[in-house]
């Protein structure tokens, strides 16, 4: 591997390792930061690549954070994918593993409830940020904006499996009416 490759792997490990410890509320909360770093800071991909990779990760089975695997893959191939996945999991897993024991001991304490309640609105704001960043990357014209609005409404107001929204959006795209 070239030294450029190694330094990319180092950057991936650092980026996702830090994000792992900031990801209150899961992967959706750190998506804007992943976008900022991989598009604006490191230039690993374009805006369009990012929204396509996110869409692919969403349509695959498994936890949401698996988008990190794809970002790592795009930046540095299979080694990048493995490093990104490990870095996204390891720090928070170690923390969780050690905290479980303390948690079980202090389950009724006041600080625990304050932390959970205090972090919740910040997390919600971060998930709105993710939606905003994705919408700006994905909706290049008004027809795409309508698809986004329709998918959001169906997912919000019905109990339909969200996979149907993705399938319908992809099928509509295939017809060519959404552009390209």
């Amino acid at each position, binding site marked *: 591997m070239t030294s450029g490759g190694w330094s990319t792997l180092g950057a991936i490990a650092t980026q996702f390792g830090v994000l792992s410890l900031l990801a209150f509320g899961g992967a959706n909360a750190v998506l804007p930061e992943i976008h900022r770093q991989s598009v604006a800071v490191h230039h690993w991909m374009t805006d369009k690549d990012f929204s*396509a990779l996110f869409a692919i990760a969403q349509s695959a089975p498994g936890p949401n954070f698996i988008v990190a695997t794809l970002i790592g893959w795009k930046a540095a191939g299979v080694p990048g994918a493995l490093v990104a996945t490990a870095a996204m999991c390891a720090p*928070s897993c170690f923390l969780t593993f050690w905290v479980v024991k303390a948690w079980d001991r202090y389950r009724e304490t006041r600080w625990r409830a304050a932390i959970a309640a205090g972090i919740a609105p910040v997390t919600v704001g971060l998930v709105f940020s993710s939606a905003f960043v994705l919408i700006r990357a994905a909706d290049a014209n008004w027809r795409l904006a309508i698809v986004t609005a329709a998918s959001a409404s169906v997912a919000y107001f019905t109990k339909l499996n969200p996979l149907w929204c993705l399938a319908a959006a992809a099928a509509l795209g295939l017809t060519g009416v959404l552009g390209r």
Partner: protein
Amino acid sequence: MSLADPAAAVPPPLPPAETLANTPPRTLFLVFLSIALSGFGGVLPFARRALVERRGWLTPADFTETLSLCQSLPGPNVVNLSIVVGSRACGWRGALAALAGLIGAPMLIVIALGMLYGRFEGLVYVQRALVGLAAGAAGLVASTAARMAEPLLKSRFLSAAPFIAAAFLGVGVMRWPLAYVILALAPLSVGLMWRRQA
């Protein structure tokens, strides 16, 4: 087993009822593997179905309690859940087995999809489908945000809305680094909740 074997005369002991405490790593691996593969775009509902309803490893109350622990720690919630459940079953070996079951297969699938994307992204039909798919996926995240916001805004609008708005403006609109925004907002919000409970 031969007929002369005295043990054959004794009926085998009943298998013990399945509890989390006597679950081996292999079972943990398989259960989390099946959770991962059945969950598209978020596996939490499937985790609940498997752990509470099908296996009975956790009571509904345990599940809610454990999930709130996982949500107040950083990291993907369901990954944290696999660590907690796995470690309660059999320590670090269980945690590792559950984690490997949860992320192994999705990782391989997504790398394969990435390779397909790399190879065929130039094709017009692939581009068209992905353009639509990306617009649809963005909408799903918007609805997740709205669903998460709703109970907070209904139950405590004044203490929640400013933090939702500030996090959105800082990270989504201004594109400031996430760490600074969290370090500025989280202590304030947690402090407010701490005082409110006094």
